[in-house]
């Protein structure tokens, strides 16, 4: 029975740039536009970086410098788990008196999951607990840095040319008005965050993120082109006859996690610093209001702003499905939950013929014609044992039960197809009081806000027909 409660059974349609059908728990609700938003129709912005194992916050500039990796934590190159530092006591000669030995602590890295240790690749034990471990140097670093400098200069030149082409009346450094596609650009010297408009016509230049510091001398950097070699190192003679030592061969995943070296042998797998995770905030693209803004502290899971759809839109869930038979009418029990604190009126409508949104339904549905009234959510109601019965007149054919802010009701489903899953769709219309709108008239006694009626397209997947 728990499978009926799975959120994927009930999908809400989001009318954004693309029409997406997603469960309500994955949607956001912009209360300024009064529309549902999904992850695809909001813009994602990076809030802060943090390490998932030591939970250390890192400012974005420092993260960029360290290539988005934590300074203290390592990943096991074998199973990608977090490595822990272990200590052993080894006898070591005293610096003063070479004949006497004393116990010194030696530290090594070990993985708790696959039992990999740093001694497996030949890394010597260190005498300090943290900070002693170095990643191996990439032999091509110098060449790569030189190439990056050259291309940065090229990017600067391209940018100057583009700015010159822009009309002179608009100063290029003024933050432009918020518009459809805004991206966050953090300048290197901390000029503050600049919001640059990405022109919808022009392709994103691949070098867009690299920008030279202002006022640097325009040194001419030349690079040598890469040289093609005629001769390639020949394969060893026993390459085809030598038996493969399977435990020594690295898997593709292990190899590609270290793109610098891509070692083929497991004895060259060195641990890498752990990748940082980021907290992101979401912003509605139309009205540029924040929909979700997490707290800055990595240990906190709360949000400063959390406009999720589940706390504004009534949620439909399937409670029980009888045996569904082809062309026979059956009653499906659904529940409607009211997330807000005031009374909500909900009416359901069937989709009309030739409704452009109604593409997936394979059954006819008859919804209750009367308006359903949902009581407000009362947080203290669960502790109140002597709850007074709510004075709602319910039609017993339609409404089966009522419990604080939830009701159960029937819909009639007539499957139209002989095979396949049964999917139905209907429209859900409810009133929404926008508490975000400012109270215009301070003389009004009641702070009533206007009710807007919102309509959502809901799809239910009721599973296969009964055999």
């Amino acid at each position, binding site marked *: 029975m728990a499978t009926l409660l799975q959120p994927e059974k009930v999908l809400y349609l989001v009318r954004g740039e693309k029409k997406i059908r997603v469960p309500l728990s994955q949607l956001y609700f912009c209360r300024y536009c009064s529309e549902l938003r999904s992850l695809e129709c909001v813009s994602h912005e990076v809030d802060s970086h943090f390490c998932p194992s030591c939970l250390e916050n890192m400012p974005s500039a420092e993260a960029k410098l360290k290539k988005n990796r934590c300074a203290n934590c390592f990943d096991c190159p*074998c*199973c990608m788990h977090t490595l822990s530092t272990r200590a052993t006591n080894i006898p070591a000669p005293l610096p003063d008196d070479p004949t006497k030995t004393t116990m010194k602590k030696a530290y090594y890295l070990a993985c708790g*999951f*696959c*039992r*990999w*240790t740093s*001694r*497996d690749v030949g890394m010597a034990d260190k005498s300090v607990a943290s900070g002693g471990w170095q990643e191996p140097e990439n032999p091509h670093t110098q060449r790569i840095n030189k190439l990056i400098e050259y291309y940065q200069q090229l990017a600067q030149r391209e940018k100057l040319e583009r700015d010159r082409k822009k009309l002179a009346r608009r100063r290029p450094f003024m933050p432009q008005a918020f518009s459809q596609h805004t991206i966050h650009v953090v300048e290197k010297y901390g000029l503050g965050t600049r919001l640059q408009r990405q022109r919808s016509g022009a392709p994103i230049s691949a070098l867009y993120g690299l920008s030279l510091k202002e006022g640097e001398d325009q040194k001419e950097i030349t690079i040598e082109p890469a040289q093609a070699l005629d001769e390639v190192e020949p394969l060893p003679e026993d390459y085809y006859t030598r038996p493969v030592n399977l*435990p*020594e061969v690295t898997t593709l995943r292990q190899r590609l996690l270290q793109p610098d070296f891509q070692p083929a042998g*497991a004895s060259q797998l060195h641990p890498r610093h752990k990748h940082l995770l980021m907290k992101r905030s979401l912003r509605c693209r139309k009205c540029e209001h924040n929909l979700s803004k997490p707290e800055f502290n990595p240990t906190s899971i709360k949000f400063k702003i959390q406009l999720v759809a589940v706390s504004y839109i009534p949620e439909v869930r399937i409670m029980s499905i009888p045996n569904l038979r082809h062309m026979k009418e059956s009653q499906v029990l659904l529940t409607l939950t009211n997330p807000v604190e005031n009374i909500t009126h909900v009416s359901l409508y069937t989709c009309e013929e030739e409704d452009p949104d109604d593409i997936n339904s394979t059954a006819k549905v008859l919804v209750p014609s009367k308006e359903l009234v949902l009581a407000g959510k009362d947080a203290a109601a669960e502790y109140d044992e002597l709850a007074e019965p709510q004075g709602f007149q319910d039609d017993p054919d339609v409404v089966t039960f009522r419990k604080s802010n939830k009701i159960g009701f029937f819909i009639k489903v007539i499957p139209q197809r002989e095979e396949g899953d049964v999917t139905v769709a209907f429209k859900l219309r409810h009133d929404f009081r926008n508490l975000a709108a400012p109270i215009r008239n301070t003389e009004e006694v009641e702070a009533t806000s206007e009710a807007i009626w919102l309509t959502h397209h809901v799809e239910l997947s009721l599973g296969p027909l009964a055999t």
Partner: protein
Amino acid sequence: HSDVKIAAGAVVCVESDIRGDVTIGARTVVHPKARIIAEAGPIVIGEGNLIEEQALIINSFPENILPDAEDIEPKTMSIGFNNVFEVGCVSQALKIGDNNVIESKAEVGRSVILSSGCIVGACCAVNTCEVIPENTVIYGSECLRRVQTERPQPQTLQLDFLMKILPNYHHLKKTVKASSTPARS
């Protein structure tokens, strides 16, 4: 009446369930609620082993043979020294060497032979018919394998601690010298 022979120096709690012809070596610790069942033959456990709670070491009949069939020879299950059987593991392997670790909820089948230094990771089920090479680590939900360079360390610290602490809280089964009459459990 039972044939459990517990060597001197072993700590076997009374709440453990030991049935059949079982020999337990010195310095072995058997936690309460561990089960060692010798159905289809005797079990010989060496020294320095650590058998934790709810571990099941069973020498059972292979599945397709009825227990009443006449022509089955009882096979001895032998377990070496310094092995660790973590909580909730199931071991039916007939031959286990030394310094192996069978982690929590792992299952080792009857046709597997563990050599030395092997680690069977948590929740890994090994049912193949093979000899696991030395110092192999089996880990992950897909039972991936790798070879480590050194064997796992024997749990001497833990064994010493347990041998001191367990008698304070549990009654122990009586030990007996291996050559004399069987002990009462």
